[in-house]
């Protein structure tokens, strides 16, 4: 593993979580909220994996890895349901985007 700087990744994980949280607070639009919540999830996963890597060498703790794997799958399920709900709720009041044709 070449001694990955775990403090760095722990901080990045915290930052991702906060970034996602900011996105949730910021936007009312359902699709953006889904993205933001997923980013929060990614932050949590990064924290878990960095915590798992604390053992050093190349034998990371497998239990947090299993948790993250479960988390990834559950996150996609939740995203799938959330997107259907977003469709049904009439989509968004896009307050600051001008559609997807860039």
């Amino acid at each position, binding site marked *: 593993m070449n001694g990955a700087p775990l403090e760095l990744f722990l901080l990045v*994980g915290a930052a991702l979580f906060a970034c996602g949280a900011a996105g949730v607070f910021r936007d009312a639009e359902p699709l953006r909220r889904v993205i933001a919540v997923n980013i929060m999830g990614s932050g949590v996963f990064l*924290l878990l994996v960095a915590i798992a890597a604390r053992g050093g060498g190349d034998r990371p703790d497998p239990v947090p890895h299993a948790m993250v794997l479960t988390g990834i799958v559950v996150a996609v399920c939740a*995203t799938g349901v959330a997107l259907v709900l977003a469709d049904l709720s009439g989509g968004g009041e896009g307050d600051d985007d001008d559609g997807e044709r860039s």
Partner: protein
Amino acid sequence: MTIVQLFDALLALLLLWLAWRAVTEAVLFRAVVSFVALGLVLALTWFRLEASDLALAEAAVGSGLTGALMLAALRRRSDRSPPAPEGPAKGAALRQLPGWVLAFAIFGALAWAVLHLPIPAQGLTEEAHASLEKSGVTNPVTAVLLNYRSYDTLLELGVLLLAVVAVWSLRVAPRLRPGSPSGPLLEGLLRFLIPLLIVTGGYLLWIGAFAPGGAFQGGALLGGACVLVLLGGLTVGPTTGRIALLRTGLWAGLAVFIVVGLGVMMPDRWFLEYPVERAKLLILLIETAALISIGLTLGCLFYGGRPESGSSDRSSP
């Protein structure tokens, strides 16, 4: 600074920049693309942190499938309401300030907490590796998922089923846009790609016992194959019989897990306590059923609704 440190720093910067873009981009399409790119860089980060199983799952599911779901939702949204260009409302920046302050406070609290974690620390590595011969597999993550914490995985399969139930309860599947682009080039690609995906999914399932891989990664590939089938317009019309087959596939994973869990109880063991000499076989059995369920579930999530029998063939050009 060594090359490796430079690489780690760049990785961290890339993660932060992509997340920032995904949250603040004005054009929604670009935000989604940033999010997909974030997923891929995250997969690279998992590999860097010795989490190869996660890298596989993240690239396939976290980035690929989630991206497909979002892009499909984006298209349906633009179909419904043609985009109305709007500048940011007056005072929008000021209104958002409390949100940013709160987010920064969250970051501060989390950063303080994680920087006080003991490094290095052992965790459960020793215990997990010590019982590995009795677990039936040699990949420690698979051992955790399918043996030490198999109950969690059982519940996770329940969550997958629940997601499909939720989506099916909410609505009938929306029509895919007519005139699915199934020109000869795409069809040619799909004709070899889909069987390859299925075979590779099975391969990942098999090697998950002793190398990075497993039912979830294989199921993710299978889900990708389902998405490709739907997108390429290769579906056949849903009939009652086929929907029944689909339902069976969807609950098969959970059902096999429960049956195995109960079955091993016969000669006075606990629920899901595999006999050591049978553990490998039982895990393989459970994982195979789980693979099918996961793949079909992900495909159903992309389909976005309940299939109605007798509806017209969506693959007609």
